[in-house]
């Protein structure tokens, strides 16, 4: 790992692109495949110019056949390749769950190792933006985290996007790599060179003593905003634990944080019932960790994601909701939520210039 210029900034999408290019350069067995991989937009820039740089057979476009395509990368992996499969939306990957769940996830286990490993990375874009609506804005992270044998990664920063992608490609297991659409254009420092972030380690993204917020992917951004406000205005110190990898789950880091703060908010960019947030709350309960107040899940309500910005505004929880949950647990500052700075842009885009339409 090299860390020559830690202050160099890239967008999340550029970081994925850089990580991918490094993998392709380093390992001739790696290739990227999926609808739109070599196209002019290059999956929001994450695969831009890879075909030009590495050749058309290292960055492949394909017919609309999500199911067979998934089988194909499983077989290619068995045959020694290291494919990176992309889905422009997790919603499309629903067509391929048989292959992911029955085959990729179980192969190594069910053949007792003699079947070989399935080193594939399946990138899926999750989350909202610009009124995508009910069939283009799901998360389903708990679905993947429910399946033994799948590693499930959900980076929140450009650095982790790169580091976790590289580690995912190196990993000998099928890895579901979830990218929230609102992260792609976010900038942040990204280590140069072949940089790897181990799978299965939570990151304490901000430390605090009063209450723990467990979050992943874009919810980490919201949690950090909430924590900034809470610290500055309410004297509440929120500790933000970025899950980063939903499976295998580094519960120890979460438990240590909760032991310290005795307060728990779980933020999850997904609907509530049987979501990943439930798992965190359940583990904390089972572990018998003492809490000063009942734990709180901050999630989407249990309905599909609506398109209209008027409904999106109430559907998606954000930093103020996390602040409010934390303040109530701590027992002070809740009324300050009205002072929470207004978003600088409409609720259905991550920032004012968000281009849409996808």
């Amino acid at each position, binding site marked *: 790992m090299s860390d020559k210029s830690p202050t160099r900034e890239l967008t999340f999408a550029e970081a994925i692109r850089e990580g991918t290019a490094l993998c392709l350069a380093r390992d001739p067995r790696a290739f990227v495949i999926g609808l739109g991989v070599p196209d002019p*937009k290059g999956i929001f820039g994450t695969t831009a110019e890879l075909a030009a740089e590495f050749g058309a057979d290292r960055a492949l476009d394909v017919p609309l056949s999500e199911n067979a395509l998934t089988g194909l990368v499983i077989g290619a992996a068995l045959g020694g390749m290291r494919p990176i499969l992309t889905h422009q939306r997790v919603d499309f990957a629903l067509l391929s769950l048989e292959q992911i769940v029955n085959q990729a996830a179980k192969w190594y286990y069910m053949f007792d190792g003699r079947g070989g490993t399935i080193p594939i990375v399946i990138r899926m874009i999750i989350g909202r933006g610009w*009124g995508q609506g009910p069939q283009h804005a799901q998360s389903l992270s708990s679905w993947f985290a429910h399946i033994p044998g799948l590693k499930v990664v959900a980076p929140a920063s450009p650095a982790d996007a790169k580091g976790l992608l590289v580690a995912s490609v190196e990993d000998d297991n099928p890895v579901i790599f979830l990218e929230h659409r609102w992260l792609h254009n976010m900038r942040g420092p990204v280590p140069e060179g072949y940089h790897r972030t181990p799978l299965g380690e939570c990151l304490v993204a901000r430390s605090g003593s009063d209450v723990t917020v467990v979050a992943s992917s874009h919810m980490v951004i919201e949690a950090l905003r909430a924590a900034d406000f809470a610290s500055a205005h309410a004297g509440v110190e929120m500790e933000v634990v970025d899950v980063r990898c939903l499976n295998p789950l580094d519960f120890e880091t979460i438990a240590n944080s909760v032991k310290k703060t005795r307060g728990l908010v779980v933020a999850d960019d997904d609907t509530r019932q049987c979501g990943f947030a439930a798992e965190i709350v359940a583990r904390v309960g089972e572990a018998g960790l003492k809490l000063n107040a009942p734990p709180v899940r901050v999630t989407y309500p249990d309905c599909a994601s609506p398109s209209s*910005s008027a409904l999106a505004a109430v559907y998606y929880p954000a930093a103020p909701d996390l602040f409010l949950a934390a303040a109530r647990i701590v027992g002070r500052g809740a009324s300050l939520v009205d002072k929470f700075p207004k978003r600088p842009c409409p609720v259905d885009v991550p920032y004012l210039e968000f281009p849409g339409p996808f």
Partner: protein
Amino acid sequence: MMANSPVPLSQPPRAETSSQICDRLWRLYLEMLRIRVIERRIAERYGEKEMRCPVHLSIGQEAVAVGVCAHLRKQDKVMSAHRSHGHYLAKGGNIRAMLAELYGREAGCCGGRGGSMHLIDREAGFWGAVPIVGSTMPIALGLALADKRRGGDELTTAFFGEGATEEGVFTETLNLACVLRVPMLFICENNGFSVYTPLSLRRAPDFEFGSYVRSHGSLYFSGHGNDVEEVFALTGQALSAMRQDPGRPCVVEFSTWRYYEHCGPGQDDHLGYREAEQIKHWAERCPLAVARTRLLALSPALDPEMTAAEKRYIREIDAVIENVRSSPMPDAATLQRGVFAP
């Protein structure tokens, strides 16, 4: 308000044209023009960022929607996919409900929940569009099966792009239609691209769509999709073949071209993913221009009427847009209404 339904072909010939052919073409042209005007307006106003959802314009593909739907009665059913504005409008879908949906309003056909990719107007016989490629094909088959079982004579039509035929669900659906003997109409709009991906990366050079379809036991026709008269005639042939061989589904493939980007309000030929020659070929075959030239040859006097019609449609869509823009957004309190049907 603009007319919400396509001009039905069963109406008596109009007085101002002499031949029936000219009359029919005139009505088909008007309907294409109406759709074109509406979508152009959407494109023009999209930059205002008030339509906050993806839009897949069908500009260039109007002839298929209009030529096929001209055969359909109100009770006949249509389903479509992401690129459905044209099908919705040609089938008589409510224009205000559509625009309100694009503007995320309460008056939208989905109450603002769906956006452009989820149009519906069951009263007009438009039973829904969804953006997962291929997914309405089997649903439409189920609708057709229900009608068949009820002994109804409604025809169900699914519109989809050629990309949808690559999904396994296409063969599964077509096979089920053949096995269960459900006479449903599949309309494939082959515009050569799936987003930016050309057919050459998705089908082998010797792929034969016609024999693929026929091998299932289905009827198959194909023709030029930018000539509304050919679309109309071929669909008529398809329907009469279906009547002669009851219980057989039919797939009709039309070649066509989209003039705009896959999704969004702009044109994107500068990106270079489509060959200049192709672009030129299709630019010369704009379905409106083709029909217009032919109409003017038949009846030069229509020229001012065309201009007048276009102006009228522009006025109408602008009025709809203004009406919609001043209409309320959905009430946030309704967010969780209807997760379950009561």
